[in-house]
């Protein structure tokens, strides 16, 4: 079957009314998470995983993907209207977005951001379709040693996510590996780190850990901002950009797509890098660069296109190679694994129907976001009027219910709370959480493929360098790990990336 037939099959599967509802709900919830200033995309996706656990794999992943890119758009709304970015990747949008609001062009800014997001997201998804088939065909070439090498590349991204201190990143990464070891040994069957507790035989629940470490700790460390100002949603009329604004946005969107797509493919880059670089590109190339900072449409259209192109492009390494490029994607990958789907080359050979349905739903989701967001701007802004104490209480309640429903056991609620406190402690110690989620997700896959590889080679470690694909991948991993030694300094914007 060629790509188009399979994609059409995917559309047929994604267009069942259940799956459409899941995509719709995902966009809705994602946008809400994006609008809420205290809850970032990782926490948001983590928070909502329990909701999707009992759905069938297709519906569940469709919903989570929709949540994921929904957050990217939601962050824009507060950036433009309130000068407060809902997400780090929309931070740069505040400059011209809020300036436009002051000029009375808030509606136009939001519409252009939505259209830009749609354009960027759709083009990136087309890229995924194009890449899926050739990379998926590599599936059978990837045996246990190659899979292990892929996981080495994945784990080496820890370097890129490290932030300020490598030692702290390693502490976090080791902690993640340790947690992933709890439970029955996946090969020999002996219980590990269970302390005689039957509850731990099945391992520590991934979802409870994620909800705790990211969701709960984020809420607990939430510092009350200044009073949220009263916002007035722009009227329907002002939503339409003028002809001149459209004309000026188009090249910015094209540049944003390029920047976001390219950077999204590079594991370890976060969406904020894309939006920052897109803004920089506008400063350099736009014909109206002198107006940037004073409410230029390019300053909204470019970065917003870029962060959505980035979000969708980042799904390419996940789907085709099983490498989670950012913390949010790592959480998403965890959700795949919960559903019995291993993202990577074998996804398209073993579960091609599900994979294509999800890809098709990415197109649908991007369209839904566009339709959903522009007319409903008033609704989103009204969420901000809910007082913070009530909002956080509601989120807390939601997390407890979410943790409970994983197995209908109070034990998981305590696991969630315990890991929430751990997450809070790590945050206070300035230890990044991203490496932990990376190793937590990749650890078990890495262990399994390592042991299978060594059985194939009968204990000989050279199996990883004797096979061309795995040798190249291992080399790449080593290169990434050594890159900080090469005085390859990151730009300042990167080291202070709040998402990392």
């Amino acid at each position, binding site marked *: 079957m060629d790509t188009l037939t399979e994609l059409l099959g995917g559309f047929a599967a994604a267009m069942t009314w259940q799956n459409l509802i899941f995509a719709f709900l995902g966009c809705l919830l994602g946008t809400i998470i994006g609008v809420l200033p205290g809850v970032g995309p990782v926490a948001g996706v983590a928070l909502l995983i329990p909701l999707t656990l009992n759905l069938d794999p297709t519906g569940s992943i469709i919903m989570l993907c929709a949540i994921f890119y929904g957050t990217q758009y939601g962050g824009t709304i507060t950036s433009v209207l309130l000068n407060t970015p809902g997400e780090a990747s929309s931070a740069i949008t505040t400059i011209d977005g809020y300036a436009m609001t002051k000029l009375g062009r808030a509606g136009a800014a939001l519409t252009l951001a939505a259209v830009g997001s749609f354009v960027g997201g759709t083009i990136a998804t087309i890229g995924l379709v194009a890449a899926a088939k050739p990379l998926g065909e590599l599936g059978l070439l990837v*045996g*246990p040693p190659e899979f292990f090498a892929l996981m080495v590349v994945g784990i080496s991204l820890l370097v890129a996510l490290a932030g300020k201190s490598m030692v702290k990143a390693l502490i976090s990464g080791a902690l993640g590996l340790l947690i992933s070891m709890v439970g029955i040994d996946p090969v020999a069957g002996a219980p590990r780190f269970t302390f005689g507790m039957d509850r731990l035989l099945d391992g520590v629940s991934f979802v409870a850990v994620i909800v705790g470490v990211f969701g709960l700790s984020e809420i607990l460390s939430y510092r009350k901002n200044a009073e949220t100002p009263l916002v007035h949603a722009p009227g329907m009329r002002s939503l339409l950009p003028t002809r001149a604004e459209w004309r000026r946005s188009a090249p910015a969107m094209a540049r944003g797509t390029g920047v976001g797509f390219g950077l999204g493919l590079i594991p370890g880059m976060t969406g904020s890098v894309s939006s920052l670089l897109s803004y920089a590109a506008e400063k350099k190339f736009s014909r109206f660069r002198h107006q940037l900072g004073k409410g230029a449409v390019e300053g909204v259209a470019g970065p917003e296109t870029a962060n959505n192109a980035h979000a969708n492009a980042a799904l390419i390494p996940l789907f085709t190679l099983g490498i989670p490029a950012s913390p949010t994607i790592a959480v998403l990958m965890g959700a795949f694994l919960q559903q019995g789907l291993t993202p990577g080359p074998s996804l398209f050979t073993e579960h091609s129907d599900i994979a294509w349905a999800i890809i098709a739903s990415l197109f649908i989701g991007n369209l839904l976001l566009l339709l959903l967001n522009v007319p409903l701007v008033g609704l989103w802004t009204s969420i901000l009027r809910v007082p913070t104490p009530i909002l956080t209480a509601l989120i807390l309640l939601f997390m407890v219910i979410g943790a409970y429903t994983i197995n209908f056991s109070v034990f998981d609620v305590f696991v969630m709370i315990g890991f929430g406190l751990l997450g809070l402690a790590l945050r206070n110690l300035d230890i990044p959480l991203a490496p932990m989620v990376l190793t937590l997700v990749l650890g078990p896959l890495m262990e399994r493929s390592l042991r*299978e590889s060594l059985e194939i080679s009968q204990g000989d470690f050279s199996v990883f360098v004797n096979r061309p694909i795995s040798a190249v991948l291992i080399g790449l991993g080593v290169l990434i790990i050594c890159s900080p030694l090469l005085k390859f300094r990151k730009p300042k914007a990167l080291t202070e990336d709040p998402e990392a």
Partner: protein
Amino acid sequence: MSRIKITAAFAAAALIALTGCGANAGASTVSGDDFPKKGKSIDLIVAFSSGGAVDTAARLVQPILEKELGTNVEVINKPGAGGQIGYTALTSAKPDGYTIGATGSPSVVVSPLDPARGAKYTRASFQPLGRQVVDPAVIAVQPDSPYKTLKELLDAAKANPKSMTASTTGLQTGEHFALAQIQETTGSEFAPVHFSDGASQATTAFLGKHVDVLVANVSDVTDLTKQGKARVLGIMTAERSPSLPDVPTFKESGYDVEAGTARGYSAPAGLPDAVAKKLEAALQKAIEDPAVKEKMSALGLQTSYLSGADYEKFWAGQEEDFKKALPLVQKKN
């Protein structure tokens, strides 16, 4: 101030007591007459990953079970450790009928016998509900392999022990026992590679030529043979399989090896009688359903139903057999 605290503490205590009572009350009503409650779904735990024969069989049976029991049945995959993770989940579930599982021997029989595995369950932790199929073991090579007959392959493995890798679905699973029995009777030694998540991983690795020899069940190779992606050299059973009529048995080739996997369904021990009866009856209906049987045989699975009691006897017999064979597959320290 202190009064408020006391009141709050009291209220909290009352709340805890109330929820506690609620839980107790819920547990004591399990008599089984009202089983299954409308809207309460039954989990069917499959201890291997999706796509394998255990999973496929469970998913075929599932819709009929739903019809018979009048409630949702959800297939849940809990792969890992050659089935042990799923079996642990099954036996630690409440014996109220809302959790049942697919059980396959030898994995379920053997895992509690080896103390090194630290299994939390024994034979007595399961209540067998019915056997569905017996799936004989086969040995297959790559289509471009130089070995055309079983004898050629086994002789080569005898001349150069451990020169060829062979897949299993995990330590001490049916495939691993089959390899051990081959080694015991013929002296041919393969290097086992354990794909602990199940047959689909093992088959994928074989198709990618990452392992030389595929040791699997008839159902795993029926389709592969049709597509010319595997050459099955022998089947470890007394008679040829209707799904693979051209494949000679080990006996025909002069080797006395019989091995395979038997699969059925069980609940955690301690089911109320009424619940067990309902589940057993529904399973029998589902397993013997003509449409299900037909789909099963298309996949290379010959239905061979045994009632719960007979499945239990069969299980006990297997336990005796595998106890003797266990040293062959234990890790040598």
